[in-house]
Each structure stands twice: as C-alpha cells, then as structure tokens.
C-alpha cells in the first residue's frame, strides 16, 4: 500500500521501538506533524527551544540506552539543534535527529529557512543523510538507528525535504542494512586479550580506569568480576561514574582535573593501567607528558581511532568492552595486591579529598551530600557544567550505571534541565535530580514550560553562587582575582518557578537544606530549590591547566575542620 513520506517516517520510527520524540514544529516539518496523530504510540514532547529537544533526546538516551529522537524544522530549527548534536557526539550518545528541509525544487536557492544542515553537522555527527526521494526514507531510518546505536554510539541526522514528506510511495521496511563501509569489532583479538591478561597477572600495582564505555556496553558486572578476582583498584573518569560502585572497597572514586588526590596518586604510581572504555580526555589525564609515568597501558575500546590518539598504549584491544572483559576474566589469576591496596588506603587517609571547609555559610558540597543522603543514592543525577558539575560528581556516591548524566566532552552549560527532562521521560519510575548552575540554568530555563505542559516530575536544585563559578575560580587562581564579568545578576528563581506553575523554595542556611530536599521529594511533581550558597567556594582537588596529575592541588589543610561523611562506608 502507498504511504506518504511522513507516514513512512512515523511507521519506521515505531519499527525501531521509538516511543518518545522531542521537538518543535515549523513549516518544513508540518506534513510530518500533521501525520503524527495517526500514531498515538509516538509521544511527542513539545520543547521551547530545539537545543532543549536535542539535550532531552540525549538525556533520554543516556538513561535508557535507546537512541533519543528529536525533530526540528529547517533553517533556524535545525541550527538550534547543533549544540545538542555536538554534545551527543562528544559523549558517544545515541541520537537520531530529524530535520525538515525546504522542498526539493528550492534546495540551493537560499529559499526561506533553508540551511545546509547536513553540511553544518558533518563533523559532529557519526553520519548524516539528506533524503532526496521518499523511497529512500525507510532504509535511511533503518540505517540511522543502526549506526546511532551500534559500535561507538553517536548522533545521526536525517534531513527530509518537505515535499518528500508528502510524496506517496510503497512502504516496505527493510529487515537488513547494507552498509559495506560501516564496521566495528565486537570481539577483542584473542591473542591481544591473552597478552593483556599476562600483563595484568604480572603487575604489582595495577589500576583500572573505568570510563563511559563500560556503561554503554553494560559491562559493569564483568568489570566488577575483573576487579574483585585480581583485586585491582578502580578509578573512574567523569563520565565513567556509576560504572563501578563507589561504595566498593576497591573504588578510589573519580580521577582527573577535579579527581580525588588519592585517585590521581594511584594513576601516577601504578605499574599497569587498564583503561577501559575511555579515551584519555585531557580533563582526565591532565598533561599527558607526565601521565602515569611508571605504567604500561592496556587500552580496551571499541573505536580503533582512540587507540594511541592521546597517549602511548602498550597493549591495545579493540572490541566491545563487555565481550573483551568476558574473555579476559577467564585468563586472569586471583591475586590480592595487599601492599598496593594498603598503600592506597594510606593515601586515602592522608589526603581526604572529600572533606569540606567549616563555614557558617551554606556550602554547595553539603547540599550535594544531603541530596545523596536523602535519596540514599537512588536517583539519576543530571548536572550542569562548571563547579556544580564537579561537586555533584565528587560528593554524591554513584553505585549504579546511568545514575550520573553530564556533559563531559563538550561541557555544555544548559544541558542540565532538558537532559533531566529526557532522563525522567525515559525512566519515569526513577527520581531525577537536576543539579543546575545559576548561569547554566538560564541558558535553557525556558524548558520549565515543557516540564509543566508535559507533567515531568524532575527535582531541580540550583547551586546559586551568583557567579559563573568555575570561570571565577580560574580568575581567582590564575588571573589574580580579576573577576571580569563573572558576577551574575540573577532573577528570583523561586518566582520564576512559580510563574511556570512549579513550586519552589529558597534555601540560605544549612539547617534548611534537609527539610527542603525532603519537601521536594515528597511533592509528586516537579519542584525547584534555589540553594543560595557561599559565592566564592572553590572546587578542590584541582590540577592546574598544563600540570600533570602529580600536581594535584588540595584544599589548603588549615581550612579543613570537619569531615561530613565517612567515605569508606564499604559494601
């Protein structure tokens, strides 16, 4: 039977298991939207800015492991998606972005709302398509989802001219893709696996660096087996948080620019690094010249182009992390590494990186700790970028995969609110906490309307320090306190929430924190808390730009008076 391009698109999405679409209408997608009511299985969530649609699709994808879908019209709608697509690309998040395009006869004529979105997104998509004929549509959708969700996941964009959406052709959904140029290696080379296992069995001071690849590949059980069997301590990259339970005795927490001092010391002292599903980002490694100077490096990743890109690697294994670890665990000897582990325990004791200053004012770290305590860690935390992100990464204890969602590679302020919306829509049974910066929150604040219109019960905690805090911290430490334009005049966020029909409260004092969090959790819908925190609090530990992990700066000792939480509550 003949169907229109728009119908074919909707039916193809349904075949791919799509349930939710985030988007905004416009002339070039009107035929598609006009068709949407025929398919009630597809829930459309109307956002207020296309960037919000892309981040929501990204948040949805990270929380569910399914490709997130967003739609925008041609021209400005499509270009508004760009930041969100780039963000998904950097963090390997599966996404299918659908854009309308001007009708075929107008293409190349600078028609109203024409933008070369395939050209624009070329370097920030895993692949993109412009559909020139409705007969290509079904196959293109099939390929797009396949590419987005397999191998190293990433965003794929499909640009569909308006008249293609209206064209009527026969609909047959292909059951196979034909992509001769697309390949990924799922199983690690068995010889390499054996060699790596041998290195691991011989190591005296081995250390696992667990990245987001473990979460993507759903290999947390295999990782745990490896760590426990050979008694290898584990550090996480920022996006690897949740891949290994942080309350595990072998967990050393996050490494990197704002990682734990003892985690960074472990990296610098290890004689073998087993880097799994991570890509040696400069925020994780700091200066690569001084990175892990004593270690051989085993690198397991599905993307061959990541091998040797940033640091030298002694033993690469290209493959899907889960498969590789399964094979490798069979070759691993049981070990105890007592000396190494007790050395690390001592460093952890001597460098209490999670202790916070004694202060009469409200400290942001305390806020995060209390959200952790109140939720007992049973929440998905979605962060902004900057200090709030680092405190959320440091002071919440992540024990489950997909519980920490953050813009790592691109560092996109404004990711927090729409991504939290996406996560909540994908996991309605989970409590979702959006940890927002007062700066970043205002970059996508309009999505409060989406929350109310669609009844999305996210809990919003604004870490309101009155500054573009992370930049202010750099100005303080590296630009002699010259706070050029980092101070923010802020609106009354509680009144703003109220205007969007979302209840909220302001918290200025320590003793108000726990009741406020409780109130937010007890309320059935969305809730906003404006935490007015100490304005000039800094994030520590910190590796100054250009320094190696050995140069990790810690909070000046004199300022530490109390430890809020004993981080070694073990499993």
């Amino acid at each position: 039977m003949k169907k229109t391009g728009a119908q074919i698109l909707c039916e193809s999405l349904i075949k791919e298991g799509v349930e939710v679409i985030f988007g905004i209408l416009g002339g070039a997608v009107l035929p598609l939207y006009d068709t949407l009511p025929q398919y009630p299985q597809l829930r459309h969530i109307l956002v207020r800015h296309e960037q919000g649609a892309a981040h929501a699709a990204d948040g949805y994808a990270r929380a569910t492991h399914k490709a997130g879908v967003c739609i925008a019209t041609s021209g400005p709608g499509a270009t508004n998606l760009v930041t969100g697509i780039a963000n998904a690309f950097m963090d390997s998040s599966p996404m299918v972005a659908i854009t309308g395009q001007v009708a075929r006869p107008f293409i190349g004529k600078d028609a109203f709302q024409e933008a070369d979105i395939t050209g624009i997104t070329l370097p920030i998509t895993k692949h993109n398509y412009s559909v020139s004929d409705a007969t290509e549509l079904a196959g293109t959708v099939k390929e797009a989802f396949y590419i987005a969700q397999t191998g190293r996941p990433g965003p794929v964009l499909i640009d569909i001219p308006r008249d293609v959406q209206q064209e009527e052709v026969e609909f047959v959904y292909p059951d196979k893709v034909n992509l001769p140029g697309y390949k990924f290696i799922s199983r690690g080379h068995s010889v390499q696996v054996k060699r790596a296992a041998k290195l691991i069995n011989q190591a005296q001071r081995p250390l696992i660096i667990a990245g987001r690849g473990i979460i993507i590949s759903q290999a947390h059980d295999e990782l745990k087996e490896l760590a426990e069997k050979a008694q290898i301590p584990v550090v996480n990259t920022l996006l690897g948080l949740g891949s290994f339970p942080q309350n595990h005795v072998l967990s050393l927490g996050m490494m990197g620019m704002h990682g734990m001092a003892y985690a960074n010391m472990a990296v610098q002292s290890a004689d073998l690094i087993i880097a799994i599903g991570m890509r040696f980002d400069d925020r994780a490694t700091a200066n690569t010249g001084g990175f892990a100077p004593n270690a051989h490096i085993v690198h397991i990743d599905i993307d061959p182009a990541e091998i040797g890109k940033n640091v030298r690697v002694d033993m690469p294994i290209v493959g899907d992390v889960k498969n590789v670890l399964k094979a490798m665990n069979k070759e691993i000897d049981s070990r105890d590494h007592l000396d190494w582990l007790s050395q690390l325990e001592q460093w952890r004791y001597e460098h209490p990186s999670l202790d916070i200053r004694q202060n009469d004012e409200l400290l942001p770290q305390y806020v995060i700790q209390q959200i952790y305590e109140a939720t007992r860690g049973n929440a998905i935390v979605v962060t902004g970028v900057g200090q709030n992100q680092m405190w959320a990464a440091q002071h919440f204890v992540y024990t489950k995969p997909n519980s920490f969602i953050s813009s790592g590679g691109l560092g996109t302020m404004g990711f927090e609110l729409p991504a939290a919306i996406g996560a909540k829509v994908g996991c309605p049974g989970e409590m979702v906490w959006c940890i927002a910066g007062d700066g970043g929150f205002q970059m996508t604040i309009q999505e409060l309307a989406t929350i109310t219109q669609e009844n999305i019960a996210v809990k919003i905690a604004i870490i309101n320090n009155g500054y573009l805090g992370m930049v202010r911290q750099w100005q303080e430490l590296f630009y002699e306190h010259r706070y050029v334009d980092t101070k923010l005049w802020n609106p009354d966020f509680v009144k703003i929430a109220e205007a969007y029909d979302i209840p909220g409260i302001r918290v200025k004092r320590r003793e108000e924190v726990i009741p406020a969090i409780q109130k937010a959790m007890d309320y059935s819908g969305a809730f906003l808390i404006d935490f007015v925190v100490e304005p000039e609090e800094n994030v520590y530990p910190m590796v100054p730009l250009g320094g190696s992990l050995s140069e990790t700066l810690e909070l000046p000792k004199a300022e530490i008076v109390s430890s809020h939480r004993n981080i070694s509550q073990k499993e």
Partner: protein
Amino acid sequence: MSDTKHTLVALVEDKPGVLNRVASLFRRRAFNIQSLAVGHSEQPGLSRMTVVVSGDSAVVEQVRKQLDKLINVIRVSDITEEDIVARELALIKVNATASTRSEIMQIVDIFRANIVDVSSDSVTVEVTGDEDKVESLLELLRSFGIKEVTKTGRVALTRGDTQ
C-alpha cells in the same frame, strides 16, 4: 619525529557529499593534504581516492583510522611502504617563440612528454610520471617562462596481484 609523505588509497562510495566528508575530516583534525585525486574505480558505485599527506607515522595512522570511520569509506590503506605504481599528470603552459620552440620540443622529447597545444607565443606540455620527473621537467622549462601549471596530484595502485 620526522614528517614523511604518505600515500593513502581509499575505496569510497560514489555518493553525494563523500568528497566533502573526506576533506572536512582533514581540515577539522588539522591534517595536511598535499594532493587528493579521485575518480571511478573498477567497481560500479565505488570511487578510488588517492591522498598524499605528510606527517609522522602516528599522525598518518590517525588519519587512516579516522577516514576508515567514515561510513562511506569502504576501505583505506597506507600503501607508502608497499611496492606501488604512482603517477601524476601535469599540464604546463610555457612561453615559446619561433626561436625557442625547437629547444622546448627537445626537452619535451627527452621526458617522453607531449605537446598538446601550440599558439603563437606558447606551447602546452602534457607530462605523466612520478612527482620527481614532473618537477625536473618544470625546472628545465622554467627558464622559458611558465605561464600556467595544473597537476592532477598523485594516483597510485599497488603492483601485482590484488587480494
């Protein structure tokens, strides 16, 4: 680390935008292209691309892997170390008067090049060979005054049987 010239050969799908994808990748990762030549291959729907890049081996290996990740690239190999046939073609328009024309023709003969166009004050020479040969001919013709040059860039295949 030493920068050397590498020859990469890629089999790519003959689809709109493929050249753009390849070029965009080089630009974005700041890889330097010395030449890029592309045309249909023996297989319908597929083109063969020859790219000459300079850089140390690690950089070129990164180029190769990034190219290989493009969905429209079927296969790409660095054939620098292999036994290859490599050629480029140049068209050289050189000043020629009645008195210099025969001297130019002699040089052209030595290089087994051809004169493909003649006018009252110039001749156009076509030469095929490796870059050294083309460069030497250009050098010799320079004294007559070169008006225009265009080159195809290197095209290359490995010698002998293909697997």
